[in-house]
């Protein structure tokens, strides 16, 4: 977890706006601090940090009258099984408060609710409804109501069509679109409160004048639904007649068990002060650490032997799940930039990864041999590694990406050659000859590996000129073998090239490279079809070998 107060002090983007000399701060709210998403929470956090106020205590209260009930039916199990609810009683909205209330819901929807997939929030004017409420799931054609801000009734099927063109709502339709049953909440008179996660009913719409708010959160993640409800009620119960008091609601699950929400659970953790000092690298007294934590909205006091700190984690701080989260808050309150920098005494001997060490050495000598290094993409289209080289994609053993946004990311490359040819195509204005190389990884399927695929480190070089220059590429191979201390000839682990065939090569101008008793690649003059398909016009010869046998 992190805290924005420090940020505003240390990284604050101070800029005078217009004629005003009020200093403006840009505040980054970390993605896991849902309690700082609205102005109410942010101001409260700052006030507590500045020790102007004490952190409020959030309480769940049972109403004097009947408790609001939400009954979940078993039909929801397959689509959106969880629901929680609460009531904000005698709240007083203003235009600003109301806007902030709506905005917080929207921010939560985008953030922890994962665009309403995990949790969707519905807020309703309780005075227009009568409980108990029922959360069930029905066939779309059986759901008919007047949705928020519409003047007539539609069936769920009609709504799904209407909202396809709605820039805001169209992003949420997919969550239920192809399901046989849609989730829906009714009151005891059959009024539809909402069809989560898409839209509320217009009937129970809240306004600035609403006094009693019924909040329901439905979802597929129970923990997150409870967190979302806690955040909303802790933030806005401030405006209730009894501030920070939240009226409980009862939720009955299909198995008959009933729970009361919001949880508003306070949890206690005990952390040793020396652990905080040890993890952060500071030397503060337990009392000071407790004070730092209290300012971070984690009410703390020193207990026991004087080295232990008891920390109360409020319902607003769902991000605190481990002692390390508490340690971080202490460090933030202390100020990262106030921490003394020290060097660890860790003594180690460095080693290079052998494959990278060999690669580095070869790169320098490839450049010394007059070839220029290219750096091409590991992802490419099927066409690049198959069709353009005269191969069928099934012959490549390539790994396929399931969700590419464009054809450029269909597969991981199985050869470096297409990248180099594309590099030449993009640099045709450069003086000839073009001599390029790349030493990098290719990927193929391999069922002997835990992930079902593996990399191979390849070396590829191309020569592009008015003549094919096979002798140059061949000479480069000889030079590489010289550098790798591999002698010519088949004996004693030497290397030879033997006439071969390949769809990418001009007939009779292709040879296979054998070294240390295994085939390591090919060299040859590229086939005119390959040259043309890569939008080139000159003859070209290439070499591509696997360098891993030389480790």
């Amino acid at each position, binding site marked *: 977890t992190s805290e924005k107060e420090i940020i505003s002090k240390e990284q604050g983007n101070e800029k005078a706006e217009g004629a005003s000399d009020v200093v403006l701060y840009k505040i980054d709210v970390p993605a896991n601090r849902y309690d700082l998403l609205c102005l109410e929470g942010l101001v409260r956090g700052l006030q507590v940090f500045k020790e102007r106020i004490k952190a409020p205590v959030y309480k769940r209260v049972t109403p004097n009258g009947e408790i609001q009930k939400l009954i979940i039916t078993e039909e929801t199990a397959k689509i959106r099984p969880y629901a929680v609810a609460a009531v904000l009683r005698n709240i007083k909205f203003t235009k600003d408060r109301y806007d902030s209330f709506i905005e917080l819901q929207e921010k939560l929807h985008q953030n922890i609710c994962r665009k309403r997939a995990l949790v969707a929030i519905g807020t309703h004017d309780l005075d227009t409804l009568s409980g108990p409420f029922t959360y069930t799931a029905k066939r779309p054609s059986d759901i008919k109501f007047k949705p928020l801000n519409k003047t007539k009734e539609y069936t769920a099927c009609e709504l799904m069509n209407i909202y396809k063109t709605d820039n805001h709502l169209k992003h949420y339709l997919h969550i239920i679109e192809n399901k046989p049953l849609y989730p829906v909440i009714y009151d005891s008179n059959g009024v539809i409160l909402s069809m989560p996660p898409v839209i509320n009913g217009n009937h129970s719409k809240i306004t600035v004048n609403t006094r009693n708010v019924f909040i329901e959160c439905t979802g597929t993640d129970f923990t997150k639904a409870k967190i979302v409800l806690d955040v909303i009620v802790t933030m806005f119960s401030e405006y209730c007649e009894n501030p920070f008091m939240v009226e409980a609601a009862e939720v009955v699950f299909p198995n008959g068990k009933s729970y009361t929400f919001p949880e508003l659970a306070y949890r206690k953790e005990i952390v040793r002060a020396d652990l905080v000092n040890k993890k952060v690298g500071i030397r503060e007294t337990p009392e000071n650490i407790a004070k730092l934590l209290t300012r971070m909205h984690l009410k703390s006091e020193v207990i026991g032997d004087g080295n232990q700190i008891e920390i109360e984690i409020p319902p607003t701080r769902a991000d605190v799940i*481990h002692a390390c989260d508490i340690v971080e808050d202490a460090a933030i309150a202390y100020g990262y930039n106030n921490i003394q920098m020290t*060097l660890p005494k860790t003594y180690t001997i460095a080693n290079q990864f052998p*494959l990278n060490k060999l690669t580095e050495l070869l790169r320098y000598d490839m450049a010394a041999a*007059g070839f220029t290094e290219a750096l091409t*993409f590991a*992802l490419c289209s099927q066409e690049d590694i198959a069709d353009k080289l005269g191969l069928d994609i099934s012959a490549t053993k390539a790994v396929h990406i399931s969700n*590419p946004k464009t054809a450029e990311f269909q597969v991981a490359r199985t050869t470096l050659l297409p990248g180099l040819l594309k590099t030449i195509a993009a640099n045709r204005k*450069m003086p000839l000859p073009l001599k390029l190389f790349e030493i990098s990884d290719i990927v193929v399927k391999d069922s002997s590996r835990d992930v079902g695929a593996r990399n191979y480190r390849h070396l590829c070089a191309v020569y592009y000129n008015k003549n094919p220059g096979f002798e140059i590429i061949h000479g480069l191979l000889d030079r590489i073998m010289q550098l790798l201390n591999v002698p010519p000839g088949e004996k004693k682990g030497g290397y030879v090239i033997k006439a071969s065939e390949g769809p990418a090569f001009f007939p009779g101008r292709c040879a296979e490279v054998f070294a240390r008793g295994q085939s390591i690649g090919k060299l040859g003059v590229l086939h005119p079809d390959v040259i043309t398909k890569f939008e080139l016009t000159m003859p070209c010869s290439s070499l591509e070998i696997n360098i891993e046998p030389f480790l």
Partner: protein
Amino acid sequence: MADGPVAEVLLRQLAAADGGLDSAELAAKLGVEHQAVVGAVKSLQALGEIIEAELRSTKRWELTAEGEEIAREGSHEARVFGSIPPEGLAQSELMRLPSGKVGFSKAMSNKWIRVDKSTADGPRVFRVVDSVEDEVQRRLQLVQGGQAEKLGEKERSELRKRKLLTEVTLKTYWVSKGSAFSTSISKQETELSPEMISSGSWRDRPFKPYNFLAHGVLPDSGHLHPLLKVRTQFRQIFLEMGFTEMPTDNFIESSFWNFDALFQPQQHPARDQHDTFFLRDPAEALQLPTDYVQRVKRTHSQGGYGSQGYKYNWKLEEARKTVLRTHTTSASARALYRLAQKKPFTPAKYFSIDRVFRNETLDATHLAEFHQIEGVVADHGLTLGHLMGVLREFFTKLGITQLRFKPAYNPYTEPSMEVFSYHQGLKKWVEVGNSGLFRPEMLLPMGLPENVSVIAWGLSLERPTMIKYGINNIRELVGHKVNLQMVYDSPLCRLDADPGPRQTQGTA
């Protein structure tokens, strides 16, 4: 040859001349072809500032071939006159002379001769005067001597009508002394030769000066890619700091190692189709370390190791999904897991620099693949202060000394800090990396001892490279659309001696 004697003479003449001389006049004076003088001028010009030559175009009268013959042998009419003896000549005989026809009529109109048609054997021609002045020859000789201006306009046009004169436009040089004028240039040698060295003749010979303003000939060489030059330097820095390189040669990773092992919950947005490349084939990892998977599952779904956990239904299918790794932290997780299996625990410092993949929206600074640099230190009792100390040393080696740390949120580090440095050129604090202590929920299920902390930081290789080489569009740097000229021209990568904005500012 041409610039030998003529050039020498030219320089001597120029030394004696007042102000300068004209190339055509010199040619006439020396009795050589004008072209020879022009050649000499040009070769002297090539030597530098010895002479200055200004191109002039002048009109000049020249004799035609017939004109030259007349200048030499006299006009046709004079020759006719000369061939007539006192006793006269038969007209038929006279007409057979080479100049007969033209000369006869001209001599007649000049009244130098007369025809007596009364003689017995046909018309006979007699002299009228005793002697004649051959005006035509004299005038042509004047022109030949370069004194055409002494003739009147009328006289010249009359000669031109007779096709004895033509007017030609001549390009000549007006040559004057240059700033390095000398008369002894002619023997300059251009280059030292083996013969000169063996004979020792170089001692006595002047050498043509070099033009040091001209560019040299660039060597015919290969070049390393700038991004990978920067990669080499980063490797070097880590090695200098005693960090061991982790294997990262697996672009394909299971979701388990890429996310779950790092305590990144399965509903985390990073695991969304919009952010991560998932594989269709092979779609699932074949093996996962069973016991460890169980510990990870428990930590996510129920908590443990002092953690509340995320309390959700952790699914093995989700962990099996294969992805193109989204960070090299997956390789760090594997390395730390291997380290945890070694008993007793030995401290370790690891680094890696390799490709990672994101299914993101592409723009001028974001590609679907980039290089991540990662450093990791695992030891007993490491603190946030240690992390900052290591970062200070690391960035100092990059030439970055002003650092600030800002709280941040990462799912797998706690505490987390973003690293900022003050950029002199941009005049603002820019983010240069992300760092933190790995969460106990990540380390303890691996089997690492409880009091072992692991500090880690990461940054991209592309960003510092773009800043260093002043590249605004990442496509010019990475991928096939690279500008090869930029690769050819890029300087050495010296991260700690950056002649960039900082020093220019200092010297300004």
